[in-house]
């Protein structure tokens, strides 16, 4: 019986695991795991017995994939991290995304330099997915400030959406054999062409399984001369996108999260575009319950001033309880939990290392 909430918190100094009962009254914390090096991605895989996966970015010895079968009491390395084929010329620089595939041992990894890998044995061996990793556009992709990363993998049967910074949104409708750029309506403020075929700095893509065809995107907005390109919605599986940023204080941000039980409810964290921090030092999560038509500011319990942090692209999530909580981690090491759909916030941990990613599961 699922009776615990587990959080995986990837930080600049390793992975932490927090656990609480379903009442979420008090979270215990264990870690750091992973040699004290940066963890950019984590997955709590609940397809069978719960298993945690996390990337570990070791600046000295390369990339590792960590796994735990006891909900994060101890971790071991899988037999291999993704590796580019011999003669490819690229070397793995980071693992930005770990996502479940179709069967219980099928894993997908989005990496830097922007490429996709797949494992059919629970992360012990990996094969590069050539359809995107060797895409004809790939030589023209270029790194954003965070590197040239494939950070988002959203799967829906044979339909696979990928977010690449800086490459844009790519869509496969044949299970990953072939991919096409699908960026109609996705703008780029840094490109002479405001709406290029590809090359946008997509920050995050999200979808809800009960709303086939609808997707939400946080794109790199914040361009005064090109407004309304930062927060987007698609209703045709990502073939075309429209702005839903009206009402937000800024269309720049990194994460975008969909409520687990309501495809019309989404959350973003608008940031001041130049500093990439909370506007005026007053942190707030913004929620729409209308699929982006209207937005509401949620800041009760959050700092009223002096909150100049960033929430990175994978650092916000929800659990899946009937009344789900929303969680976000900051680059200043706080982990916040929003009760009642984000109406009120409390700080679970206030002195962690800078937080890269947060994942939640009820197990």
């Amino acid at each position, binding site marked *: 019986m699922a009776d615990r909430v587990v959080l995986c918190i990837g930080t600049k100094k390793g992975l932490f695991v927090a656990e609480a009962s379903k009442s979420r009254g008090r979270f215990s914390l264990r870690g750091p795991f992973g040699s004290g090096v940066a963890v950019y991605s984590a997955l709590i895989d609940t397809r069978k017995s719960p298993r945690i996966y996390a990337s570990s970015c070791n*600046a*000295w*010895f*390369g990339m590792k994939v960590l796994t735990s079968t006891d909900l994060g009491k101890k971790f071991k390395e899988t037999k291999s991290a993704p590796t*580019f084929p*011999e003669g*490819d010329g*690229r*070397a*793995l620089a980071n693992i930005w995304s770990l996502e479940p595939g179709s069967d219980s041992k099928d894993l997908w990894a989005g990496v830097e330099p922007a490429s996709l890998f797949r494992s059919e044995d629970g992360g012990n061996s990996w094969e590069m997915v050539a359809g995107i990793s060797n895409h004809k556009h790939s030589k023209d992709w270029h790194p954003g400030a965070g590197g040239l990363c494939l950070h988002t993998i959203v799967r829906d049967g044979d339909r696979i959406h990928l977010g690449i910074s800086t490459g844009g949104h790519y869509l496969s409708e044949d299970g990953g054999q072939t991919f096409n750029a699908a960026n109609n309506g996705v703008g780029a403020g840094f490109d002479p062409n405001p709406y290029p075929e590809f090359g946008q700095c997509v920050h995050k893509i999200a979808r809800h399984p009960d709303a086939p065809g609808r997707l939400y995107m946080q794109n790199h907005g914040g361009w005064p001369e090109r407004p309304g390109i930062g927060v987007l919605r698609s209703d045709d599986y990502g073939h075309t996108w429209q702005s839903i940023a009206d009402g937000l204080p800024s269309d720049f941000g990194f994460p975008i999260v969909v409520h687990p039980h309501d495809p019309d409810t989404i959350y973003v964290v608008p940031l001041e575009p130049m500093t990439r921090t909370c506007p005026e030092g007053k942190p707030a999560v913004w929620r729409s319950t209308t699929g982006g038509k209207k937005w509401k500011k949620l800041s009760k319990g959050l700092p009223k001033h002096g909150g100049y942090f960033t929430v990175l692209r994978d650092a916000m999530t929800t659990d899946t309880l009937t009344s789900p909580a929303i969680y976000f981690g900051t680059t200043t090491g706080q982990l916040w939990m929003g009760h009642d759909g984000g109406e009120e916030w409390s700080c679970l941990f206030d002195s962690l290392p800078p937080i890269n990613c947060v994942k939640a599961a009820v197990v």
Partner: protein
Amino acid sequence: MSVSVQIPYALRSECGGKSEVEVSAGSVRQALTALKDEQPKLYRNVCDETGAVRKHINLFVNESLIHRNDGLETKLGPGDLLFIMTAVSGG
């Protein structure tokens, strides 16, 4: 000829706990090639998949950083020690 490769503490778990391994090599590049065959787990922590020595790994022959000599072509002779060292880095 056989030369000794000295293993830092942090990497000994990658080669069965050994503090040194012997390889047959006449240059640093040949020593790395031998490690790739004989100690593949250790090798992957020292070199990436392109064969480049990782950014924060330093290789010394005896007490001399190989970049001050001939890099990977630095010769290895009888009794030489090839040290794998982790660079000071981080934050």
